[in-house]
Structures are given as C-alpha cells and as structure tokens.
C-alpha cells in the first residue's frame, strides 16, 4: 500500500503525463457522478435542517438560529462526508472492478510487457482526476445543500432566503468553504489509491473481483471517516 502511494506520488511529477486519460477520468468522476451526488446531498440537507429546527425548539424554544447552525453543519461536515462516501461507493467500486478485471484477464501484465508502467498508466490519472474532481464536486454539493436547505426553510419553517442568509453570515466563514475543499481533495485522493491497491491484488475468477470491490468500499469508507475525524480535529484549532 505504501509502495503504491509512493509510486503514485512520484508518478504525478514524472512524464509521460497522460492528459487524455486524465480528462476521461475527470469526466467519469465529475460529470457522471454529479447527478447522484447532488440528489443525495440535497435530501440529506433537507433532513438536517428539519431535524435541527426540531432540536433548537426543544432546547431554547426558538429556532431563529437554525439556518446558521444547519449551514455550519452542512458546510463543515455533512456536505463533504456524504459526497465522499457516495464517491467511494460509485467511483471506488467502479475502479476496483475495472482494474480487477484487467488484472485477472492479464491486461496489466500485457501493459508491463509493452514497457508501460501500470501505476503511471492506470493509477496516476485516476488519482489526479479524483483529487480535482473530489474538490470540485464537494463545492457543488455544498452549494446544492445550501440551496435546498434554503428552499425547505422557506416552505416548511417560514424563513425567507434573506433571513436564511443573514443568519448564515453570522456563523459561516469563507474559511469553511476552503476547509471543505481540502477535505474533498483528501477524500478524493484516498479512493483511487485503495481501489487500485485491491484491484492489483485481485485473484483469479469472479469471486476475486467481487471480494476486491467489497474490500475497496469498506476500506475506503473507513479511511474517509477516520480522515474526516482527523481533519475536523485539526481544523478546529484553526477557526
């Protein structure tokens, strides 16, 4: 695993740079996942704002700060982690089964025979695409979250968008968006590394591909939750 990470990181800076592969993967990570991610994240945001209004009414009888709290929760935590978990199951599982099938049909060995480094050819473009794509998709997801939360609070809780934004301004900094971006990039980087690691180690047959995919989803989700915890803890000293 560590070897793979080291090889990938050196591969980022050594030619040949595979620009076409990179853009293909970026299309897969960014455009094709966008719909699912935005859809899920919007629902999560709606539930968050309804639930947090419920809480605030319980504790301090009025919920004038709900939009602010919900926006903070969405920007700092939920937007990034729900997006990353969705990406890990969609992109990560896809990569693992793709690389795994390449491994068991000996296409990886064929690449080696042709003198092409499989890490440089397969992992590096995916890694870069996921880092960039994760960053961008997290921002888009956060924006979608805020919008859907705003819409729901208009119709259901009776806050106008103006009130929502004013209350949000008291709590949210521009820093939050930057930290969300960093989180998105870190989570994005983890996914292809784990997927390709299990893909390369895939054993013969249908069972092997299934197991590689399962392992990828599990390990990358755990890694995302743990990294999220570490990053939250670190960032909490920077506010």
């Amino acid at each position: 695993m560590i070897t793979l990470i080291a090889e990938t990181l050196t591969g980022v800076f050594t030619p040949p740079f595979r620009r076409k592969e990179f853009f293909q993967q970026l299309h897969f990570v960014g455009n094709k996942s966008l719909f699912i991610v935005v859809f899920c994240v919007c629902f999560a945001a709606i539930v968050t704002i309804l639930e947090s209004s419920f809480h605030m009414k319980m504790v301090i009888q009025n919920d004038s700060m709900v939009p602010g709290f919900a926006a903070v929760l969405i920007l700092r935590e939920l937007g990034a982690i729900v997006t990353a978990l969705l990406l890990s199951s969609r992109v990560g599982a896809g990569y693992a089964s793709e690389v795994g099938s390449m491994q068991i049909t000996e296409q990886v060995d064929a690449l080696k025979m042709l003198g092409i480094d499989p890490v440089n050819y397969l992992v590096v473009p995916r890694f870069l695409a996921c880092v960039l794509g994760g960053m961008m998709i997290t921002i888009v997801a956060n924006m979608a979250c805020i919008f859907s939360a705003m819409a729901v609070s208009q119709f259901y809780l009776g806050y106008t968008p103006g009130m929502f934004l004013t209350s949000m301004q008291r709590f949210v900094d521009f820093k939050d968006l930057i930290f969300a971006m960093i989180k998105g990039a870190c989570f994005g980087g983890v996914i292809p590394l784990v997927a390709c690691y299990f893909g390369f180690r895939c054993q013969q047959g249908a069972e092997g591909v299934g197991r590689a995919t399962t392992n990828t989803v599990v390990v990358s989700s755990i890694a995302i939750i743990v990294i999220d915890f570490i990053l939250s803890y670190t960032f909490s000293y920077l506010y």
Partner: protein
Amino acid sequence: MITSLLDQVGSTLLFLQKILRTMMFKKLKVHEIFEQIWKVTVDSFPTTAMAGFFVGAIMTVQFAMQVKEFGALGYLGALATSATFREVGPLLIAFMLSGKVGAFTSAELGTMKVTEQIDAVRCLGADPIQEIIVPRFVGIIVSSFFLLAAGLMMSVFGGMLLGELFAGVNYEEYLRHVPLIVSPVSILSGLVKCGTFAVVLATICTYQGYSTTGGAKGVGRAVVATAVTTMICIVVMDWMTSFIGDIILTMVRGFRP
C-alpha cells in the same frame, strides 16, 4: 434513463414480492437463518462499531465548536447524542453497512449466479429463493438492525471520549442533560430508521446479486450497482421516515413539536 430507472424499481419490487410470498407460504429454514445472522454479525461488527465510534466523535467535535460560542457546554452531550441518534448516526452507519454487508452479499450471490450454483440448486429440485435468498434476506434484516443499533451505542461512547478530550466536559456532565433532550421519540425514530434501512439494504443486495449476469465483470458491476442504489435509497428513505414521523407526531400531539 427514466425508463431504465422505473424498470429497475419495478423488478426490485417484484423480487421483494416473490421473497415475501415464499416466506409466507413455504417452510422457513430456521437453522440457515440463524447461521446467516451469526455470520453477518460477527463479520461486520468491528467495522460498524468503529464507524459508529468515529461518527459520534466527529459530531461531538463539531458541536463543541458551536456550543462553546454560547457558553452552553453543559448541553454538548445532549445535543450531540440527540443529533447522532436521530439523524447522522443511522445515515452514516447505514452507508458503511451498505458497503460492508450489501456489497459482500451481492458479490457472494453474484458469484453463485455466474458460476451456475443457483441453477444447480434449481436442478436438484429445490427452490433457490427458499433455499438461498430468504435466509439471507431475513438474516441481513435482523443483523443489520442490531449492528446499526450497536453502532449508535458506540457513537455515544465516541462522543463521551471526545467530549472529555476535546472540550473538557467530563462523562457525568456529558450525560447529565441527555435524558432531557433525547426523548423516547428520538430513540424510537433512530430505531425506526435503522429498521427501514435494514429492509432496504437486504432487498437491494439480494436482488442485485440474484440478477447478476456476465462473468467476473458482471459481479463487479453488480457490487457497484448495489452500493450506489442502496445509498440513494437510504437517503430517500431517511427523508421519508423523518417527514412521515413528523406528520404522525403532529397528528398525535395536535401541534408541531
């Protein structure tokens, strides 16, 4: 795209109906069911417990930062526990579980399908749904429900530990206001969510596994489809349970809480 989506939903529901009919009219393999429950629980417990622990820890760190501004650290434990129980906990732990249990089961069933083991069972004159699918279906529902509940318990421990380490709130203080805010309704809503997610997970992963076609690549595709579909369905179900629960509560109490 819409047609294929509707097609998927329809065939999943038909599959669910087939399972339920088999469960009602044919003999249940109780021994098999217990074996499945045991296997799934033992297999996935460490993952779920760890996910739950970290979810609780993350929520506490986040809430501590906000609550500190109002000087209401005493409410930290109560707020974090309540939010984790009602909303974030079930959602994130279920995501985790859909990766672990769902992907594993659909890979297993998919492998059985593409290596024609399911056809072999049918050749031997047994009903594959009764023999293979129903025990898994029931087993996954029961054990994911318990796993989700256990993950929620672990999230309380994670929250307590981080409350002590990060915010300097000791355990007793952390738990003091919990009974005030975490009402039976909160716990019930968390458990209802766990139950719904368990049913969704079991249905989708058995369906995707059972309808796998096309060799090793097909198994990979089935696993991806399972993970993505379960996550979408879980988020939608999460919203629906919250919404319906809210409506029912409003009807029972006569006012919005």
